[in-house]
Each structure stands twice: as C-alpha cells, then as structure tokens.
C-alpha cells in the first residue's frame, strides 16, 4: 500500500533521444491509474522507470513518500505483469507463483497457503502442478497475475497485459483485473494503447504524447472535456469527427450546416476565423427518429451518405466532405500521431440501428450542437473549455493530479451534471 509520486521525471537515452519529458503525476494510495497513448509515446518507459528496470535521467520518484530513484527493482516492493507474461518455463505453476516468496525466504507452510489462496482467486488450483507450456494464453496471463498478487506488494504495475489475448478473452480478463484491483485495493499503474481498457479500468487516465502528459482526468472527463485535439482524437471509437468551421457573427458555419453559437464562446473565438469543430459520432441522429420536442433543440440538415455499416446495436454512416488545404494538412498530421491513416476527409455518424438510411441515400440528420467542442487549428487547444477548467488539468503541472477520492468525487459530480443536462 503506497502512493506513487512522479516529480518532473525525464528519460533521455544515450543517443540524445528523449523518451519521457518532465512528467509529473501523483498516484494516490489504492488508485487505479492508466497510462495511455499511441506507440512510442513513452508510456512503457515511464512504467519501467517506476519499477526500476530503466534509469531515471532527471527528476524524483517517490513511493510511499520515499525517494527510490537509486533503488534496485527488488528493493522497491512492486510487482509487475509483463506483456509477454515472462513465466519461468522450467518451473511448475505452483513454483512460478511461489518464486517471489521463495526469494524472500518465506516458510514452506506459509508459501503453500498463500500460493493456494491466490491460485483459488484466479481459478488456477487444478493447474498448479503443470508447466506454463501446457496452459492456454489466458491461463498463462492469470499465472502472471498470480505471481504478482501472491506477495503483499506496494503497487501493481501492468505493461499491456492483455494485448496478447484474443478479443473475447481480453474483455473477460479486463473485468477480472478490475474486480481484483477493487477487492485488493492496491495502487495500480496500467499501461495500454487500447482506449477501451483505459476508459473501463481506470479511476484516472493519463494520456501521453511524445513523452509528455497531455491530460490527466477521469475517463468521463477525457471523453467529454478533452483539452486538445490530440486527446479528443485519441479517446473514443469511432473517433471524434473534426470538421472545419468558421465563425460568422453568432453563427458557426460547418460543411453541411450552420448553427447558433453561445455568446460567451462566440466572444472568445471571435478573433479566429477558421476553427475545428469536434463532434462525436453519437451526437448525430437520424432526424426521422428524433422526437419533435428534442428536435427543436438541435439542427437538422441534409447530406449524401456514402457508406453505411449496420452493427445490430447501432449503425454508422460515412459522409465525405471537402476541407480547406491547411486544415486537411493539420488533420493528416494529427492522424499520423494517432497511429491511424484516413484516406479522405469524412464524417462518421452514429445513428440508431432502426434507421432506414442506406448507402447512397440523401438523408436528413440531426445534431445537438451544445455538445460540440471547438478547437484552435494551430495550437489544438479546446476553446470550449472555460479557462479554469483548462487550468485544472494542464498538460504537465506538477500538482495537477487530484487525490483519488477527489477524482472519484469528480466522476460522480460530472455524472450528476450530465444527468441534469439530459433531463432538461
């Protein structure tokens, strides 16, 4: 049980490459924090610095209030689950799980008791006498977790533990990890590039980009109030639509529609001509399926639908559009950073599965503009956020991280707010 404090930590490799740049993060006791970002963003390096497998070039790392920069991994009392599990193939499952206890010279009876306990927790009891090569991928994953929980470590560190499993198993293990962490209440740092894992598991999520923390927030905070284009584009699947738009007085003109702009925001963005509007696919709806009372609060517009994808529980429609060259270029470079590549500028719209819109149709869509986010195309900052909001979660402020309790309270608060807006 311990809190982990990362203070202005940097990692520079011998060749001058900076993998992690001045990162600060407070992880409260018992909190589940996710480090997420596209490949090469430094999230694994940061985790390996916490566990001690990677030297810290600059800054301080505190575990339970003690500086541990120079401590060897074995003296930090952390346990880690590796991406490829790193089980000892020459030992039985029992001995694999018992390994950390044996190194500490725990008595034989105690070892047996504790190994059997954690094996029971992870449903591995019947496999204890087998070798890792005889187990399936999911079982090996559980053995790796068993080895982590068998000793009373101060914190768990996970390095993309589910990326080697198939999709179905991944979903099950995700729930398992979440349940285990809640039950044991141990501080956990979890690295992933999968945003579903990030959203579902974490109390708080830190989004990294090129070695810098872009935003630390609750999953809901990231989804609804991203501080910049990068976070907005990274969180959410299908991703947020980025549409070029311009301000004309107190109306906002988008490729297919124009909508009124709140005065406060209009004042703030008045000096910028060209903006990027971020709209989540689910903020659209097939106009034919929107109740009349709700319809008035939004805008309806007609577009030509290129392709539709019907998924049973929902339906995606793709609407291509043209964007000015400079916006196109900045969106393309953003896509590249997000590890994806879009061939054309298109809008993804999520409509109800009951919708009758089909490929090639001219469709009438409806949008609730109040949930739209506006971004500055040059800096990428979210202009819709109030200044205080943005400052409460700045990219790399040393004290930007609230305590776990506050974070959880924050979640419920946003929940309440959201419920209120839906009711009105």
């Amino acid at each position, binding site marked *: 049980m311990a809190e982990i404090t990362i203070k202005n930590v940097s990692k520079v490799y011998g060749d001058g490459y900076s993998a992690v740049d001045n990162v600060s993060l407070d992880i409260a006791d018992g909190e589940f924090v996710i480090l997420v970002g596209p490949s090469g963003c430094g999230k694994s390096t940061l985790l390996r610095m916490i566990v001690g*497998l990677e030297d810290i070039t600059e800054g301080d790392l505190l575990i339970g209030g003690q500086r541990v920069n120079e401590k060897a991994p074995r003296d930090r009392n952390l346990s880690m689950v590796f991406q*490829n*599990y790193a*089980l000892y*193939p*020459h030992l039985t499952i029992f001995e694999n799980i018992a390994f*950390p206890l044996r*190194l500490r010279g725990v008595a034989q009876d105690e070892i047996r008791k504790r190994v059997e306990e954690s094996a029971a927790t992870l449903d591995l009891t019947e496999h204890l006498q087998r070798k890792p090569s*005889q187990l399936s991928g999911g079982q*090996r994953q559980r053995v790796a977790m068993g080895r982590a929980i068998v000793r009373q470590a101060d914190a768990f560190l996970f390095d993309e533990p589910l990326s080697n499993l198939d999709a179905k198993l991944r979903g099950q293990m995700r729930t398992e990890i979440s349940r285990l962490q809640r039950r044991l209440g141990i501080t956990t740092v979890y690295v992933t590039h999968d945003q579903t894992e990030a959203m579902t598991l974490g109390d708080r999520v830190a989004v990294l980009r090129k070695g810098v923390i872009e935003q630390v927030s609750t999953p809901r905070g990231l989804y609804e109030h991203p501080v910049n284009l990068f976070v907005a584009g990274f969180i959410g699947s299908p991703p947020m639509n980025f549409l070029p738009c311009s301000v004309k007085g107190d109306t906002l003109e988008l490729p297919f529609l124009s909508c009124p702009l709140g005065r406060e925001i209009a004042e703030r963005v008045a000096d910028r001509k060209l903006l990027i509007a971020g709209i989540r696919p689910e903020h659209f709806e097939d106009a034919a399926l929107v109740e009349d009372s709700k319809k008035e609060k939004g805008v309806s517009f007609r577009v030509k639908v290129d392709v539709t994808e019907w998924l049973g529980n929902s339906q995606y429609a793709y609407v291509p559009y043209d964007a000015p060259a400079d916006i196109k270029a900045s969106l393309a470079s953003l896509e590249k950073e997000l590890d994806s590549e879009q061939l054309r500028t298109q809008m993804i719209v999520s409509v109800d599965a009951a919708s009758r819109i089909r490929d090639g149709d001219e469709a009438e869509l409806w949008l609730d503009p109040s949930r739209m986010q506006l971004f500055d195309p040059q800096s990428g900052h979210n202009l819709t956020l109030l200044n205080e909001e943005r400052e409460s979660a700045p990219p790399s402020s040393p004290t930007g991280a609230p305590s776990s309790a506050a974070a959880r309270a924050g979640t419920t608060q946003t929940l309440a707010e959201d419920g209120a807006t839906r009711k009105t």
Partner: protein
Amino acid sequence: MSSSSTRNRVGWIVGAVIIIAYTMLPIGWILSLSFKGGDDITNKQFLPTKWSLENFRTVFSNDLFTTALRNSIGVALISTLIGVIFAMFAAYAIARLEFPGKKLILSVALAIAMFPVVALVSPLFNMWRSVHLFDTWPGLIIPYVSFTLPLSIWTLSAFFREIPWEMEQAAQVDGATPWQAFRKVIVPLAAPGVFTAAILAFFFAWNEYPLALALTSTTKAKTVPPALASFTGASQFQSATAAIAAAAVVVTVPVIVIVLLFQRRIVAGLTSGAVKG
C-alpha cells in the same frame, strides 16, 4: 500420385541405408574385431568364427589401459567442468552487456578455435617441462580448457541471447539479486545449451591425441588415445590389433551412451511456454 510417393519413400530408405552402412562399417568392423579371440583375426571373414570376450579380459587386466582410462575420465570431466563454468560467465556477459571490445573477444575466441593444435605441441612441451606441468593432469587440463572455451562461449552466448530479457527482469522485480536471477532463471533455461557445450568439450578432451601424446610420458597422466597406440597384446608375440579394437570399443561406448542420454535434452526447446508465441 501414390506410386510417385512410394518411389519417393523407397528412394529415401535406400539413400538412408547406404549412408548408415557407410558410416557404420568401420565401427562394425572394430566391434567384430574386438570379439575375435586368439588368432581369429586372420580368419579372412567379417564376423568372428567364434565369439570371444578374451580381448576385453586382456585390456582390463592391463594396467596401462585401466590407468589411462582413469586419467581420461578425470582429465575430460575436470576440463569440461572448468571450461563450461568459465564459458557460462563469459557468454552471459557477452550476450547481456554492452562493453568495449566485445567484438574483439568474440573474434579472438574464434581465432583460437581455428589455431592448429600441432603448432602448439613443441612450445608447450618445453614450457611444461620447465614449470613442472609435464606428465600431470593440470598439464593436460589447462590446454584443453583453453581449446574448448571458444566453442563453448559461442554456443552458450547464442543460447543466452535466445532467452528473453523479460525473464530476468521479471525475476528482478520478484525480488531476485542479479546472481539469483542468473542461477535460478537463466542457467536452467540455458540448460540445453550448457549440455551441448559440455558434451562438445568432453568429446574434445576425450578424443584429443597430439597434446596427450606429447605432454605425457607415464601412466601418471597418459590418456587413452596415446595409450592405445603403445598397446601390445597379451604376449609380445601376439599382434595387438584385436586388443586395440576391444579397447577402442570400450572408450567409444561412453561417448555413444552420453549422446543417446542427452540427445533429447539437447534437442528439446526448454524455453517453450515462457512467452507467448
């Protein structure tokens, strides 16, 4: 299609039989010679007319052979043990650490392995006489270790490189010191490599002839290969051929047994199941 596959099979079997026959012929011949008692070696046929264990009795009652056998076993085992332990440390450092001169060490090791043994015989002979290592076990063990080390280092460093870094890191996070991680995780995982290196080193020491001939003179340190050459029959009037054949069979048997015993250990990939894929 079935006829062509049958023809294929027949072709394979015929080829295999020819190769086996060709390689087994000398061994078979020595075996059959060793069972020919008395003057039976002149019987002008492959198999003995009467199977006899006389030659084996002769070699085992001969002091020259039994002491040579003892020397061989001792020298080969000790030089294998020392060589493999040294090679394990060296190979681990080469596989895991970045240090200046790593390439140099590897290439020098390779160069030593290529060095002709015969060229070292006379200098070593002179040197060993002056430092009193002539005709002693250490006098043979030292050159054997230095000749087997390069090959062992190359074999073992290849095996160590195959072991994922994560295994060691996992051990460290689990609370192991670097030495514990090496002893409890890396060495067991590299066991097939250790066995391979050990067997190769043992064979070299067991079969080595020129150094053993030049650096020993009495039963104190003479190993089997040079002892065989100076072998005589039961009496000086009898040709020693059959007795030498029997002695050759006796020293070949342990080698074959070792290979058969450890074959599966060498081949089996012990690392399977360590990591996914």
